[in-house]
């Protein structure tokens, strides 16, 4: 069966499950006795395993399988949850996420077996059984390492009825068998023949598997399990089982399944050479595992390995948005309404009655209604809650807490706030930077200092999101130390970013804004959490690339608040339509402060630049006509119509001829052929089908 078509769904659902697991496990850490949480985790792990298995991701399956086992024991009360288990489970989730990333970029799960994690998981299991035989532990691990199915499939298939004798073993499987033998277990090979009249071969085979699995571990199967499940076999299949029972019992169990024609079997004897080879291999393997473990618990090293191939390859999966069927129904309804509106317009236009124009106007109004609603609906389809991004933060803060050895809590609100999918995808990194900043630099490391300042021992970090008009505001707040303006100032002078004279006249706000400059960090020590000075300028540029802005307010000793303001959507904006020399231009309303009528005599010249004094503020003015290369239609002595635009703290006045009004416009790109126009950020199509260009005020300030 070709499963590639389900890859998108698989990735989406796996992400959801992993997120769910992360949240639940955090909860479990708080209340280790909560059985509801354990059950929920168990269910999520189980579905994850099932999905990974169906998709043929063996390594992922094995890892989840072992994780599930641990939780099964927790559920049975055999294992008590402790912080060690939680840590391992988190490692396990990280590893699963890595698999997922690799799958997303290459459609393959990669080759990392994460043995150290599996070992740790199995360690918990063994501990719970009080030193039970170690056999089940290596077995699943070996299963994970199964080489490409082709290896087994290539085995010659013609030596009478006992086809199991032809099974070829991979090194790891040999190893497992040797181990099992040492523990006095039996290794049984069997070949099962299904009746040729059988319709549901796969189902029968599955039942055989089921019953055999109760008796022992199936380590090899030809054809591979996946193929059998997909009915990719003739009428027989062979397998090797490690078991405590004897051959006859196994054959009987297999024969118990109906529509099975015959079962042959016997004990597998291992060749000495294989055993020898195995033992050498095992030694190598152990060494390899050790070296991985040396590198910070194996996970980070694995991450590096996984990241490398992922960078080069283009993701094989497209971005998707999950849409509520209700939203789609809405869309459908609106489209049908649109068709009705069109039809009535047509009939109104062709009717010969005298009140034609009246009628047409009515229909146009209706059409307008429909299109506005349609626009809204389509935008809604693109909106996703920021939940998907912020949900990973509690986990991050937990990890930071351990790493930094500071007590802190993350409080989140407004996770349901919706943003355009493209924005949501991009906002994760900047938010993470800010949170890390708060955790590392914000919250005081010295608990006594906190207590002195009358704050609770544990620091608080708040992440609040809410909608504000046409913007979404995300705030990251902490009750930590706040920004030390003096320290920033000294650092800036030391770095030569500003001179002392400049520093003397700068306001606190201006100084704090220096933090957003590239390579500026006040942390005395560079930690791997933050403090390399690459954080804040990245945050700023990222947010600005999303047409948003970031601001910081801070009081020394009390805390700081970072405010990110993002437009709801990027494709459609409110804009002011203006005319200059007969040409129409749009200026985004978001940039506009006010519109002023200025007398010609109010324009002064400073350093050959025209400025105006607007209520005490000196603002440079830009004659748009000159910049855009079109002749203003106004007489020189007429009053100037000036649109005051703002970018951060800077302002500029754009001189235009005429205002046409405010309009909602759809932003279109100018195409790749015209690239050198910096002043123009795009174009839009007007009601009459003509094109108007969108002026980018940021380029003019």
């Amino acid at each position, binding site marked *: 069966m070709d499963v590639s078509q389900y890859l998108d769904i698989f990735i989406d659902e796996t992400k959801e499950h992993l997120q769910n697991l992360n949240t639940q496990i955090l909860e479990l850490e708080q209340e280790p006795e909560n059985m509801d949480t354990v059950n929920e985790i168990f269910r999520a792990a189980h579905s994850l395993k099932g999905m990974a298995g169906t998709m043929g991701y063996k390594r992922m399956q094995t890892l989840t399988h072992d994780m599930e086992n641990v939780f099964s024991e927790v559920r049975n009360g055999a294992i008590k949850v402790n912080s060690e288990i939680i840590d391992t489970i988190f490692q396990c989730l990280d590893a699963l996420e890595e698999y997922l990333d690799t799958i997303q970029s290459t459609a393959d799960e990669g080759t990392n077996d994460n043995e150290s994690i599996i070992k740790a998981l199995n360690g918990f299991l063994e501990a719970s059984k009080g030193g039970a035989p170690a056999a089940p532990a290596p077995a699943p691990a070996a299963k994970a390492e199964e080489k490409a199915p082709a290896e087994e499939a290539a085995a010659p298939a013609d030596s009478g009825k006992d086809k199991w004798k032809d099974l070829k073993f991979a090194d790891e499987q040999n190893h497992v068998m040797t181990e099992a033998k040492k523990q006095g277990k039996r290794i049984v090979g069997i070949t099962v023949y299904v009746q040729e009249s059988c319709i549901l071969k796969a189902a029968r085979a599955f039942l055989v598997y089921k019953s055999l699995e109760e008796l022992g571990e199936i380590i090899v199967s030809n054809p591979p399990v996946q193929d059998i499940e997909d009915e990719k076999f003739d009428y027989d299949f062979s397998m090797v089982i490690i078991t405590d029972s004897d051959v006859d019992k196994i054959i009987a169990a297999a024969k118990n399944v109906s529509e099975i024609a015959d079962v042959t079997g016997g004990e597998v004897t291992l060749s000495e050479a294989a055993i020898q080879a195995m033992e050498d291999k095992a030694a190598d393997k152990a060494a390899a595992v050790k070296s991985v473990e040396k590198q910070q618990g194996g996970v980070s090293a694995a991450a590096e390995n996984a990241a490398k191939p992922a960078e080069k390859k283009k993701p094989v999966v497209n971005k998707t948005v999950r849409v509520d069927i209700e939203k789609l129904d809405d869309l459908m309804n609106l489209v049908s309404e649109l068709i009705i509106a069109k039809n009535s317009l047509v009939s109104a236009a062709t009717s010969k009655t005298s009140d034609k124009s009246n009628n047409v106007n009515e229909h146009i109004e209706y059409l307008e209604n429909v299109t506005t609603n349609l626009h809204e609906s389509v935008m809604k389809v693109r909106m996703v809650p920021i939940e998907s991004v912020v949900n990973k933060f509690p986990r991050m803060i937990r990890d930071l807490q351990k790493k930094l050895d500071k007590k802190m809590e993350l409080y989140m609100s407004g996770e349901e706030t919706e943003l355009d999918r493209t924005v949501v995808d991009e906002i994760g990194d900047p938010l993470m930077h800010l949170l890390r900043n708060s955790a590392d630099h914000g919250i005081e490391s010295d608990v006594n200092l906190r207590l002195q300042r009358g704050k609770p021992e544990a620091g608080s970090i708040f992440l609040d999101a809410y909608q504000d008009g046409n913007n979404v505001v995300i705030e990251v707040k902490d009750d930590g130390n706040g920004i030390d303006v003096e320290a920033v100032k000294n650092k800036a002078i030391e770095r030569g970013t500003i001179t002392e004279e400049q520093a003397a006249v700068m306001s606190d706000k201006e100084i704090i804004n220096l933090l957003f400059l590239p390579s500026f960090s006040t942390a005395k020590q560079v930690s791997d959490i933050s403090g390399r000075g690459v954080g804040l300028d990245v945050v700023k540029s990222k947010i600005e690339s999303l047409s948003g802005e970031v601001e910081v307010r801070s009081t020394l000793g009390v805390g700081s608040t970072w405010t990110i303001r993002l437009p709801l959507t990027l494709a459609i904006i409110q804009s002011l339509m203006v005319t200059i020399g007969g*040409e*129409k231009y749009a200026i985004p309303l978001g940039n506009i402060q006010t519109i002023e009528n200025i007398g010609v005599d109010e324009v002064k010249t400073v350093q050959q630049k025209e400025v105006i004094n607007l209520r005490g503020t000196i603002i440079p003015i830009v004659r748009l006509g000159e*910049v*855009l*290369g*079109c002749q203003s239609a106004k007489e020189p002595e007429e009053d100037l119509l000036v649109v005051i635009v703002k970018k951060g703290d800077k302002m500029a006045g754009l001189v235009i001829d005429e205002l046409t009004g405010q309009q909602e416009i759809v932003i*279109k*790109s*100018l*195409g*790749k*052929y*015209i690239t*050198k*126009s*910096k*002043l*123009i950020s795009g*174009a839009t*199509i007007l009601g009459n*089908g*003509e*094109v*108007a*260009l969108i002026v980018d005020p940021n380029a003019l300030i």
Partner: protein
Amino acid sequence: MDEVKVNQGPVQYIKVQLDKELYGVDIDIIDNIVRPQNVTRVPNVPEYIKGVINIRGEIVPIMSIRLKMDLPEDEITKNTRFIIIKTEQYGKIGMIVDCVKEVITLESSDIEPINHSSKDAGVQYVTAVGKTGDTLVSLLDINAVLLDKNAKEE
């Protein structure tokens, strides 16, 4: 780009007129031919880019082949057409022609590669000359029309 095709049996061209000469444009790269509409000027671009127009919700730049070939500026008449071509590199681009005549089919035997030694403006944009009946048609190399001048501008 279409040189391979030139050597392979019949190719269809749209015959257009520019100034006094006839030119052929490979029919495969033509997306659409539209009547002239109001072109919105774009500031600070090379002179031969006349601006942009809206074609079914898409913004398409319009360029003047005449200006590119240093011919007198276009005069919009009732015969003027915008030929919208589609390129992989730049997407859609419109070109102003004086008049669209007809579709011609040229066998490879009707096509003669041109001698590039000539320094004449315009010739650098022509790959070959095709013969149909007793008239000669210069076959435009669209890539050269689009690209060459860009290099010059920089």
